[in-house]
């Protein structure tokens, strides 16, 4: 099992959800986060003049998947989220030791 953590542009959420669903990946957690990478910040207007913020609004998707689903998930996300410009986001893959489903007590793959 792996954990896939994807940082994406907020406007791509629904497209990615549908693309992942087509690959059979349904469960995920979405968080509103603020991110900073090569895109750096953005300058907004004050009453007169402007101010710059260093972090941008992003969404983070967390999902735990079977090893075989990792590549299809990466493909699905990049297919929708890629514009080719800075700020498209990143995908991180982590190992997961175990998963427990709270409602049943199931563990491991069945619990996903």
């Amino acid at each position: 099992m792996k954990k896939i953590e994807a940082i994406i542009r907020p406007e791509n959420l629904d497209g990615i959800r549908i693309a992942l669903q087509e690959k059979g990946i349904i469960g995920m957690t979405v968080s509103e986060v603020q991110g900073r990478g090569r895109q750096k910040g953005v300058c907004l207007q004050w009453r007169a003049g402007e101010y710059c913020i260093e972090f941008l609004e992003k969404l983070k998707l967390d999902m735990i998947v079977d090893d075989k689903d990792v590549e299809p998930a990466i493909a699905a996300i990049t297919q929708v989220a890629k514009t080719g410009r800075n700020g498209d986001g990143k995908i991180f893959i982590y190992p997961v030791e175990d998963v427990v489903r709270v409602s049943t007590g199931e563990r491991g793959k069945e619990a996903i």
Partner: protein
Amino acid sequence: MDIIKSIRNIIRFKHFFLAAILLAVLTDAAYAAETSKIDTGDTAWMLISSALVMLMIPAVGLFYGGMVRKKNALSTIMFSFIILALISVQWVLFGYTLAFGHDVGGVIGNLDWLGLNGVGQAPNADYAATIPALAFMAFQGMFAIITVALITGAFVERIKFSAFMVFALLWATLVYDPIAHWVWGTGGWLRGMGALDFAGGTVVHVSSGISALAIAFVIGARKGFGKQPMEPHNIPMSVLGAILLWFGWFGFNAGSAVASGGLAASAFVVTNTAAGAAALTWTLLSWYHKRPSVLGTATGAVVGLVAITPASGFVTPLAAIAIGAIAAVLSYYAMLFRMKRNVDESLDVWACHGIGGTWGAIATGIFATTLVNPAGANGLLYGNPAQLVIQIAAVGVTWIYAFVVTFILAKVIDATIGLRVGDDEEAVGLDISQHAEKAYA
């Protein structure tokens, strides 16, 4: 028969004349009583105007509150709210008598009306002959309160609450009450000089704008000012505040006619017109520099309202367009100048109210016409350059007095109880550190 004869007698000129005199005498007596008679329409208008100005006070809190960081939202709103409570009581106890009481040397009112002693339901013809003296007192009370509330934009996110309370009370007493007396009090020396200030361009806006700058110098910049972004946490809240300010300003300016009628209607129209012109101008300025800004448009409207305030009872609607549009330009660049100089007068009370009010008072000396208000005067454009000089003198005096007294007052408070919160408290935010509360769960 007798009756018919009598009627015939009356119709005869001689007796008709007699009856007419009699009627005149009687009517005269009625008029004599009339001079102190309350007009229900005027009183209704003054009451609703006072209520409208009251609404502007917490509206300032929302306007400012939306522009600070989330961790200081409540404290910023609190400033206006508590000033409403504090100065309401100060005004009733002694503020009104200092500002509008019987004159002492042209500088201040005496203490005859302490605790509203002698201020009752009968009109006071010195100020407003057709409404109860209490109504005039209430209306003026709201002006005193909002002036103090305006200053709070200067020291948001870093002032100690106790120091703020002391400052607010002393400022109202030492700066507002005297200036209000000079310009509006019977016997006040600026009023005697002929200075025109219909609804408080110098008394309210110049005095608060300059004082904001003075206290900002004393308290110093926020931690991280100029390095970290100080992001407005809720612009819709600021816009809501601006909307309520615009709404309340009809009472502020048109109510300053202290009667319902032509002058009030004229003030109402120029108020709305100037606000529109200034908001539009600000939109265009921000568009020219980047994009049409929402926060900027709201600010522009407020600046236009500020600028038209002293002129509102003396100028025409077309003059209002010029006054509003120029005010927006002046204020916009004053704001940029303030930022460039790295002065943390945080929410630009000086640029909006100080500069806007100064321009409005001067513009009154340019655009005023007795066609709008026979009790006023003509300005430069109507062949009377002297009025412009008087206006500039009045503004100059107010600048100097307000700056000096506020600067000293702030210094004294800083040296005694301390103006500023500690670094830790500032970092955590005033909501938690000063009020043990959080704006949003």
